[in-house]
């Protein structure tokens, strides 16, 4: 059912993480993502895991909501793991048929599994604890420097928030149109691919017409309220850093330094062993 699709999957509750400024959360997510790719030893992943668990606990969002995102990439995850497991060159542990499982492959596969899992869960915390409108506000603020190179940041942010606002509206509309055509015996699950694509025309035409009409109405309504582009517009709720945000930034810094220190230490050890 189309009803089940939720983009902007905000989980409404009160927590320290929900309370953070969206800029903090976006930057935090970026730091976390970079750390997953930059550092790839067992110990740094342990720290990454500990950080993730802490944030999850603080966010008060049930873990099953985080794992929902995993469903979408499940197939991708399996393929990546198998690919790394069987196709990495190195010292063979065992082999069957045409496959060779190597120590390096096993390590790589485990690493990839955790990297992707942490990545998906980590980013889903951002969308679960931040309302879509807050998210666009945060992105707008972070993209602000791009104004210097004449990127229309405010307009992009406005477009994003409008798009987000209309996703549920158009989803519901699609559902209704689909029902109306089904009531006229339209068949959407034909086995023939060409027929199947063609069967979506009766949905797409009314949907596009309605989307254009809505866009037109919205433009008129904005015009009527004297919208004149983003420059110089003030916000009803301007973003403001609070004490919690500084704590978050400090934690991020500590996390980064710790991961970096461990990596350096391990590399140094290897270096020493080789020497």
């Amino acid at each position, binding site marked *: 059912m189309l009803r089940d699709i939720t983009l902007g999957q905000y989980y409404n509750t009160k927590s320290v993480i929900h309370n953070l400024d969206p800029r903090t959360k976006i930057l935090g997510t970026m730091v976390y993502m970079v750390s997953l790719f930059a550092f790839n030893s067992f110990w740094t992943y342990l720290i990454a895991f500990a950080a993730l668990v802490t944030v999850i606990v603080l966010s008060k969002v049930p873990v099953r909501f985080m794992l929902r995102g995993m469903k979408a990439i499940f197939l991708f995850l399996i393929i990546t793991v198998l690919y790394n497991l069987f196709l990495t060159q190195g010292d063979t542990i065992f082999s069957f048929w045409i496959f060779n499982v190597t120590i390096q492959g096993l390590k790589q596969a485990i690493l990839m599994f955790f990297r992707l899992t942490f990545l998906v869960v980590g980013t889903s915390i951002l969308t679960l604890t931040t309302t879509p409108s807050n998210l666009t506000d945060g992105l707008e603020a972070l993209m602000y420097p791009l104004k210097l190179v004449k990127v229309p940041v405010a307009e992009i942010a406005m477009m994003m928030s409008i798009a987000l606002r209309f996703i549920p509206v158009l989803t519901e509309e699609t559902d209704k149109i689909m029902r109306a055509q089904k*009531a006229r015996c339209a068949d959407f699950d034909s086995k023939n691919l060409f027929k199947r694509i063609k069967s979506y025309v009766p949905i797409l035409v009314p949907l596009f017409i309605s989307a254009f009409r809505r866009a037109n109405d919205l433009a008129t309504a904005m015009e009527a309220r004297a919208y004149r582009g983003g420059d110089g517009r003030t916000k009803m709720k301007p973003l403001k850093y609070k004490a919690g945000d500084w704590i978050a930034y400090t934690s991020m810094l500590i996390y980064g330094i710790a991961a970096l220190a461990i990596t350096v230490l391990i590399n140094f050890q290897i270096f020493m062993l080789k020497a």
Partner: protein
Amino acid sequence: MLLIADHLSYKYDKLNKKNVLDDVSFSINKGEIVSIIGHTGSGKSTLIEHFNALNTPTEGTIYYDGKDIFEKDYDRKALRAKIGLVFQYPDHQLFEETVYKDVCFGPTNLGLDKKEVELRAYEALKKVGVEDDLFFTSPFELSGGQKKKVTIAGVLAMKPEVLVLDEPTAGLDPKWREEILNIAKRLRDEDGVTIILVSHSMEDVARYSDHIIVMDHGKKLLDGTVDEVFEQAEILREASLDIPESTAIMRLLRKEGYRVNTAVYDADSAVREIRRTLRF
């Protein structure tokens, strides 16, 4: 009995405790004009989407012509041709370049040959009174009332035995409202099509109906002939529904001791009835 709802319950999802439909049972006879009335959120639209199996009930079932339509091997595509459902907004349905082509969509889906499809489309458009010169215009250029007519024709072209109209008068002016409801009545009178009207307003549909089912918060509140239902004006008011103004006036007159007939559902008959009484 043509259509029987048997202890029908429906929820959006299993986690949700709230029933959108809660143990609804009724039966509809062949050739009746039935009105299903209720406020927004009363579950009336969800209910009618069960009639042609667009929704599947959580509990209970529907029998059409003596057969359980939610049985595994029941032909639900054929059912959708037999129970035609016209949705509220014509814009959700119209998509072809011309009115005529759009009406052909339904019968084409039934796998009929081209001649039969075109004949049926022509007959359906004629039946609802769309003028010939509109056949090859774009459906998007029509007025609201014309669009409504075309969507009804689009469903009629499948030759349904039951025609369900969801809020057929919404957004139309009085002249068009009357015209659309007259089409429904004509279909019943001339072709024996069973009509189910869904509305939030008693005023609109009362005088066309033989049978009224009142829905409130997913439950069936009242079920009976128009007179039987209007007798219970107090219960209706609790569901924030009103009986037609003319009926209310007649009931007041009755209370004051005038011997008027209270089975009056529109202004014209009210005037006639008052005149008749005063002549005594």
